[in-house]
C-alpha cells in the first residue's frame, strides 16, 4: 500500500487539475453559450439551445467515449498512423463541453431573473450594452447562479472519475490499479471514495464561503 500513497497523491493532483481546467473552460463556454441563447439572433439562440439540450440528454460517458475514440480516429487519419489521443486532453474537452451546457442553462436562468428595470435603468444612464453586461448583469447573475454553480462543480468533480475509463491515471485509476495488483479492491476503492468525498466537501465549503461573501443583503 505504501507505494500507492505517492500514486494516490499524483492521481489526486490529476483529478483536481482536470476538474479545475475543465471547470474554468466550461464556465467560459457556458457564459458564451448563455449570451448566445439570450441573443436576438434566432439562429444563434437555436443553435445554443440545440447544444445544451443534446448534451444534457445524453450520458456523460457516451460523450467522453465519443470524444476519446472519435478523436483518436480523427488524429490517426490525419497523421496516417495510429495515434491515441491524450486521455487528459480528451477529458478536458468532454467535461468542458458537458459543463458548458449545464452552466449555460444556469447562467441563462440567472440572467432572466434579474429585474428588467435594472437593465433599463443602466441603459437610461447611457451605458453601452457591453457596459450594461459587464457592470450590471454579470455581477448579479453570478451571485444568483452561485448555489446552482456549486452543485455543478460538485458534479464535475465526481464526473472526472469517468475519464479513468479511457485510461487517465486519476484517483479512480490508481485505485483500480492498486485493487488489481494487491487484490484488495475494497480497501482501494474505499480510499478513493474518501478522497472524492474530501474533494466534494471542500468544494461545498468553498462555495458556502463564497455565498456568504457575496450574499445579497435582504434576499
Amino acid at each position, binding site marked *: 500500500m505504501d507505494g500507492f500513497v505517492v500514486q494516490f497523491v499524483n492521481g489526486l493532483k490529476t483529478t483536481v487539475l482536470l476538474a479545475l481546467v475543465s471547470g474554468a473552460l466550461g464556465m467560459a463556454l457556458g457564459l458564451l453559450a448563455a449570451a448566445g441563447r439570450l441573443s436576438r439572433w434566432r439562429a444563434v439562440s437555436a443553435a445554443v439551445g440545440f447544444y445544451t*439540450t*443534446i448534451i*444534457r*440528454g*445524453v*450520458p*456523460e*460517458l*457516451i*460523450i467522453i*467515449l*465519443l470524444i476519446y*475514440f*472519435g478523436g*483518436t*480516429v480523427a488524429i490517426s487519419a490525419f497523421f496516417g498512423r495510429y495515434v491515441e489521443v491524450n486521455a487528459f486532453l480528451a477529458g478536458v474537452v468532454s467535461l468542458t463541453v458537458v459543463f458548458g451546457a*449545464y452552466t449555460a*442553462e444556469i447562467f441563462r436562468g440567472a440572467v432572466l431573473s434579474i429585474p428588467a428595470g435594472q437593465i433599463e435603468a443602466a441603459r437610461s444612464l447611457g451605458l453601452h450594452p457591453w457596459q450594461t453586461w459587464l457592470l450590471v448583469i454579470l455581477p448579479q447573475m453570478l451571485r444568483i447562479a452561485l*448555489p*446552482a454553480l*456549486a*452543485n*455543478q462543480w*460538485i*458534479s464535475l468533480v*465526481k*464526473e*472526472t*472519475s*469517468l475519464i*479513468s*475509463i479511457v485510461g487517465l491515471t486519476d484517483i*479512480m485509476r490508481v*485505485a*483500480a490499479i492498486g*485493487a488489481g495488483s494487491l*487484490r*484488495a*479492491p*475494497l*480497501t482501494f*476503492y*474505499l480510499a*478513493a*471514495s474518501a478522497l*472524492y*468525498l474530501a474533494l*466534494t*466537501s471542500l468544494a*461545498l465549503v468553498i462555495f458556502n464561503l463564497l455565498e456568504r461573501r457575496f450574499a445579497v443583503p435582504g434576499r
Partner: protein
Amino acid sequence: MDIMLLLTSTVTLTGGIPLTLLLTFASLLAGFVLAVPLAFMRASPRKWLSLPVLAYTYVFRGTPLLVQLFIIYYGLGQVGAIRSSVLWVLLRDPFWCCLLAFSLNGAAYTTEIFRGGIQAVATGMIEAAQAVGMSPLQIKRRIIFPIAFRSVLPSYANEVISLVKATSLASTVTLLEITGLSRKLVSETFAPYEIFIAAGVLYLGLTFLLTGFFNVLEARLNAAPQARTHPRRVILRQVPHEQ
C-alpha cells in the same frame, strides 16, 4: 461519416434498450421505496433519526457513482463473510450489483428531494389533518407526502433522467445495455462516431420521452392542486447537491 452504418448501428443498439430500461425502472422503484421513509426520517426534528440519514445521503452524493459501483462489484468480494453468505449469489452478478449501486445512489438524491418537499408542506395542512383526528401515519401518507411529491415533481423528474444516463455505467461491469453494446460494437468495427452517436440518439429519445411523460404528469396533477401561476417545465438538469 457513414450514414448507413449510423442507421444500422442504431438498430443494433436498440437491443440494449430493454436492459437500460430494466435497470432504470428497477432502481427507480427500489430507490423510491427506500427514499420515502428515509426522507421522513431526514425531515424529522429528532437528531438521532435525521443525522444517520444525512450521513448516508452526504456520502452517496459526495462520491462518484462509479466508485460506489466498483466498491459493490469488486470490493464486497474482498469480505469473506459476504463471499460465504447467500447474498454472494446476487453480489457476484454484475446486474444485481448495478441495481444495488443505482438504487442506493438514486435513493440518496431522492431522499433529499423528498425531504425538501416534506419540509415545505405548510403546517396548516398538517394541523387541519390533526384536527380531524388523523394518526401521524395517516397524515404522512394521505396529506404530507402527496403534497410534497407534487411540489418536487420537477426535481424528481430530473433525478429520473439522471438515472437513465447513470445506467450507462453498467457498461463498466460488462453489462450490455445501450452503452455496453455500443462499446462492444466500436471495438469490433472501429467506427466510434457512428456508433456512439447512434447510442446518443437512443438516450436522447429515452430522456425526451421521460421528459414528455413528466410534463404531462405535472400538468395532470397541476390541473388539480397548488396555486401556481405558470406550469413549471421539466428541464434536464443534474440533481442538486445542496445540503
